């Protein structure tokens, strides 16, 4: 039987030990490790989307690459039948109840991946360029506008990129790849902290 003296709650450690958070030109700029959030991988048939949305009150974008961001809840449509929901930790119970309702009515798969991913917030004038050091997508605002999201790759590492603002991105990566990714960001910040060559616009 459970002994009372052992009833301690475990400490949550993201298990990702990064160099000191990298700062940018202003306080809000730079790369930050996002605090623990809840994440669910939602899979169901595209034809059920509207009904699931109605039942769950969760905004589920129809098109791959589109996200919905409401308050502390982000839903990213990553595939034809795949959504990633990221929310504040405080939403966990409420969401689980919602998912139980969905699961009872629809053919679907809900998998908790809260701890699988680590989230980075990348902000500032260099944000786009920084991600482009290893990510081959065109992240210019006209091609990759605010709200756009996708699974893609950074060098050989799978990442998810979401644009939250003109100069603000949310990047998700599997937990054990986070320190590796942060090495690149760190090095890049060092590179741009030294005087830049003279070029045309768009600094």
């Amino acid at each position, binding site marked *: 039987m459970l002994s009372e003296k052992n009833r301690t709650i475990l400490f949550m450690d993201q298990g990702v030990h990064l160099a000191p958070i990298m700062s940018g030109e202003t306080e809000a700029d730079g790369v930050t490790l996002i605090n623990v959030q809840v994440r669910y991988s939602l899979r169901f048939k595209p034809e059920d989307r509207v009904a699931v949305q109605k039942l769950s009150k969760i905004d589920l974008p129809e098109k*791959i*690459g589109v996200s919905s961001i409401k308050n502390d809840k982000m839903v990213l449509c*990553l*595939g*034809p039948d*795949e959504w990633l929901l990221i929310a504040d930790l405080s939403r966990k119970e409420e969401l689980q109840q919602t998912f139980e309702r969905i699961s009872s009515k629809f053919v679907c798969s809900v998998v908790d991946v809260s701890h699988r991913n680590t989230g980075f917030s990348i902000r500032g004038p260099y944000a786009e360029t920084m991600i482009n050091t290893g990510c*081959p*997508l065109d992240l210019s605002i006209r091609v990759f506008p605010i709200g756009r999201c*996708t*699974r*893609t*790759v950074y060098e*050989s590492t*799978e990442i998810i990129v979401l644009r939250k603002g003109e100069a603000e991105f949310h990047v998700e990566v599997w937990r054990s790849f986070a320190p590796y990714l942060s090495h690149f960001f760190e090095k890049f910040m060092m590179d741009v902290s030294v005087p830049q060559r003279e070029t045309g616009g768009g600094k």
Partner: protein
Amino acid sequence: MLLIRCPYCEEDRPEVEFSYAGEAHIVRPVDPSLMDDAAWAEYLFVRDNARGRHYERWYHIYGCARFFNAVRDTVSDKFSMTYKMGQPRPTDAEITEANNDGLS
């Protein structure tokens, strides 16, 4: 690095997001036990390996995670078209049309 149109994402995306998945339209037999060794070996191993027009599969592994089909010329490496899994092998006319679209 090729630029590949994912028929699910409906976008041209860089090759490093994709993983090649071999010749397309090689359907796994419904009941393999009915095949003789030769027919089974043919299914397992024998490939067109076409010099020229090639039907092949790609996996958008670092994207929408879908497998899909493509028609590509293996001499020029140019894609004629890509299409969703389950769609039939395109006809010559469809490929020609796709090629022309690509050129315009």
